[in-house]
């Protein structure tokens, strides 16, 4: 139900680059004080993942990821557990601690770029240094891709990247990616 884009595999630049939407993920925003042990504790309880505290990094398990978004803000993405489960699990675990847990599942979608040209296509619209040395495994960054705010994740051991984009920008970004991959170098 969560497909925003035509999620058919898009094959650009002579097959060197594939763009596809990954539907069906669950997204939860978490705000809280990283110094409060309950915050990291809640994430571990619910997702079995250690809360990433280093800026622009993520922590992942087989079924979920936690992205650092800000010093008091994370995005939890899960493949298996529903947002409702995560939200209630976190809230339970956080108890009365001042924090905010918000289901944002319908507001986000993920687009995966596969192939050697992925980063070059992103570099056409993104000012980050995407060289594997500068942006490698375990790293993520919020930035602008063309004129859309995105969260970029470097997928391990490849040139591949994944983008999390806000729903209302997804169509624009999709067009932009098609356009940018027309002549991948």
């Amino acid at each position, binding site marked *: 139900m969560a497909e*925003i884009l035509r999620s058919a595999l898009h094959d650009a630049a002579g097959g060197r680059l594939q763009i596809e939407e990954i539907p069906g993920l669950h997204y939860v*925003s978490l705000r809280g004080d990283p110094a409060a042990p309950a915050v990291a504790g809640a994430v571990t309880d619910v997702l079995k993942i250690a809360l990433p505290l280093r800026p622009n990094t993520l922590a992942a398990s087989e079924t979920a990821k936690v992205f650092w978004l800000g010093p008091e803000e994370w995005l939890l993405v899960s493949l298996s557990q529903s947002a409702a489960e995560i939200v209630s699990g976190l809230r339970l675990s956080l108890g009365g601690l001042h924090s*905010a847990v*918000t289901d944002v599942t*319908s*507001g986000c979608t993920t687009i995966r770029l596969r192939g050697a040209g992925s980063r070059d296509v992103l*570099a056409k619209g993104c000012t980050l240094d995407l060289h594997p040395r500068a942006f490698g495994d375990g790293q993520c960054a919020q930035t602008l891709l*063309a004129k859309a705010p995105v969260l970029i994740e470097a997928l391990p051991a490849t040139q591949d990247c994944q983008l999390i984009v806000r729903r*209302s*920008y997804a169509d624009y970004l999709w067009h932009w990616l098609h356009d940018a991959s027309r002549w991948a170098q």
Partner: protein
Amino acid sequence: MTQPARLRHGGRINRDRPVAFTFNGRQYLGCEGDTLASALLANGVHMVARSWKYHRPRGIVGAGAEEPNAIVQLGEGSRTVPNARATQVEIHEGLIARSVNCWPGLEFDLLSLNGLFSRLLPAGFYYKTFMWPKSFWRHYEHFIRKAAGLGEAPTERDPDYYEKFNAHCDVLVAGAGPAGLTAALAAARSGARVIIADEQSEPGGSLLHARESIDGLPAVSWLRRTLAELAAIPDVRVLARSTVFGYHDHNFLAIAERLTDHLAEDRRRGPRERIWRVRAKQVILATGACERPLVFTNNDRPGVMLASAISIYTRRYAVRTGNNAVIFTNNDSAYATVLDLLDAGVRVAAVVDAREQPRGPHLEAARQRGINLMAGSAIVDVRGRRRVQAAVVASLGADANGLRGNDTTVVDCDLIGVSGGHSPVVHLYAQSGGRPLFDEGLAAFVPGPAVQTQRSVGGCRGSFALADCLREGYEAGTAAARETGHDAAATLPPGPGTLERHDYTLRPLWRVPDPPGHARGARQFLDLQNDVSASDVLLAAREGYHSVEHVKRYTALGFGTDQGKLGNINGLAILAQALGQDIAATGTTTFRPNYTPVTFGAIAGRDLGDLFEPIRLTALHAWHVEHGAEFENVGQWKRPWYYPKPGESMHEAVRRECHAARNAVAMMDASTLGKIDIQGPDAAEFLNRVYTNNWHTLKVGQCRYGLMLREDGMVMDDGVTSRLGENHFYMTTTTGGAARVYAWLERWLQTEWPELKVYLTSVTDHWATIAVVGPRSREVMKGVCGDIDFGAASFPFMSFRDGTVAEVAARVARISFSGELAYEVSVPADYARHVWKALMAAGAPHGITPYGTEAMHVLRAEKGYIIVGQDTDGSLTPQDLGMEWIVSKTKDFIGRRSFARADTARPDRKQLVGLQSADPALVLPEGGQIVDRPQWTAPVQTTGHVTSSYFSDALGRPIALAVLQSGRSRIGQTIYVTLGDGRVAPATITHPVFLDREGKRQHG
């Protein structure tokens, strides 16, 4: 092969690949590897242009970016290019080029008559005349405009595609001559990420025509080896046809790469140009030096060329630029050209050297081949109009400001090579924020101290010996890499072996004295493109335009497409002389991007058409499209404006939609509203500070309208906020204001009130919101939602309930922007389409009608509800809008203090009122101004204007909202609304709420 001036041997052109092209309607053949300039010269074509002001015949002067004269129009139709430099255009099959700025043609140009009047057209002549009669300026200007300008802009849409690429590197090298290449090599060997860019079709710079050897190899062989080594190192990018055109703050540089223009049209694939946006940790500038012309009478005749350009045409392009040459120089470098010419079998009739005692290694080599050296002399005049026929040579006086006697020698020739020394290409250094310094020894401006993490090496630093270039480049590359944490170079092979060095001696010569009997400097050209002569600079100095910047602007020196790469230095030296000050004190004009002109389309990139601004869509967009909606742009969003049925006008559609909302039920996609989730123990206190009304009293399950002000007391945004829990609120903002409000709230929280425990999360995209509006809305809701009690008392106005709508967990709020009984259903956007369709189905028996923003506006205007940004304009307070009821008197909030200021407290401010048009058929124009009397003569004071105006279906007549000075106290009076064309329409001032002032409908 019919290229009469093509040398039989040598050069880097491909003789096996002839290329046909057209110039001024004539077919020519060149070779692959030629520029348009070299191909024309190979065909013996020297005269290629008419000058801008006097329409004098002009030839090719240089061989690269510095060229001021050989400006041509390329191609036709949608792919035409104005103002291309023939020296930088690579020829390809089918190339069409023509001269610009001449009519009817290059050979016979009517405007060359201007030349006859040239005495009347000194610098700035137009400031002194064309003032009478006063009304005639537009006629004069018509002709001035026609005469000005070079090429012609295309008139069709550009079929080409341009893109951008963001790049990062440790070391960016601008220029791939010997200095740049060794810099890149050293940095790359050290392990740094390197980008090296050169504007030419192939890297190599001066090596492509150099006479020297490096490491025992001819320069071009060393070049090949070096490029091969660079190509093999990962993380090195060599960009040819790539001009570093801007050096901005924080080591951000822009490069324009030209990808397809050099190919025949049928071979072009992919983008035409690409802009590289480079963030470099270290920058090495290796942009070389530009040879400087000499300033003498008629120095603009076709056949007068830079000596270095002659060498380039001879050695790189295998072109014979003339048969009988005179070289005029004040330094040794031109003797290399002498050798090149002699090697090519060209006669050198004389070498005129301004130096009394010329010396230098090239000179010694040339002397051995036997030359006619005229030392201590200068060319004072040139004979020939369309092509040089002879040089007139005279002896220079000791201080070079006068001639030694009146004797002149006429030397026949068809080519004059000039070298007045070299100007380091300090453009990028200066763009980086640096100030070039004058070096007396070189008589040139060289880079001063670096301002950013940058180094200049080689020719652009004033190091003109190849050995120095190689060494400096290698050292700089090593050092730059080291500063980025790459110092493997220490263990690497050293840079290329050093060569023999030699001194650079020159006799500065800024202006050759006029030949006897000539007006001062009248035909001594400085800026060939803009026809600026030495006399123009002297005139400017005489008239008090003393700053070099004044001279530039008064004479247009350096204003052209070449930005004075050749002429500026001579101009400012002449100015310095005229003012009796030194050149250092005179200074240069400001160097600015672009180094050479760059296509608009490339700089615009892909941000055009549908990608110009993101098009933001709601989850229901596809449904709206399928159902024929017309859309309105609201910020970046596309919102359904109205849904016309076949054959229906907008007016009819909107009436039908309004009718449904007032009499049955209608439905709207309100998903674009900004939505912010607010959590924390201080959330209520936070709202209390940012909204004008009280939020502590709001109970869980209730909603409240809020008005947000700027600190100056003016209305900034509004919306409804619901209390989801004790510490949990859900705020909505206007569509256009969403981003602004979110940023505003974060700012206050983080910078002003960090003690407040509040977290904000933007949930605009997560929730889809559907407004179900109208007397039948309750029935519709009941049809899709079984777990909420919709009883009027149990679910009162301004409260919300969580429930299940069409099997989807939803939040249903009983709020109304229409004044009707209405519900807003919020569901996660993934379910929006499903829920919308369920509502449509449930509403079908009641005639449910989707409506757009236009009907929404009509409905809210009937109720006197404002739209921030339409009925307000940043100059209205809540009181002005008649909204005192929402302004707390007992607490502080943003903006409150500003009410107490004298002019915000004034009673005669503009106030929101209603207007009723006297003509029941006339919808008053929005934006109409209000006057008291039907007749008026300007100027009269403006007292108010119509902000919103519609035909009200419910009332069967037009309604309007307006803001009007002291409006509330004038209700009942008649005013007149201007219709924009001098006419006015009478209207009565009314209360701004037109319908159901008691609010019975929405409470029903």
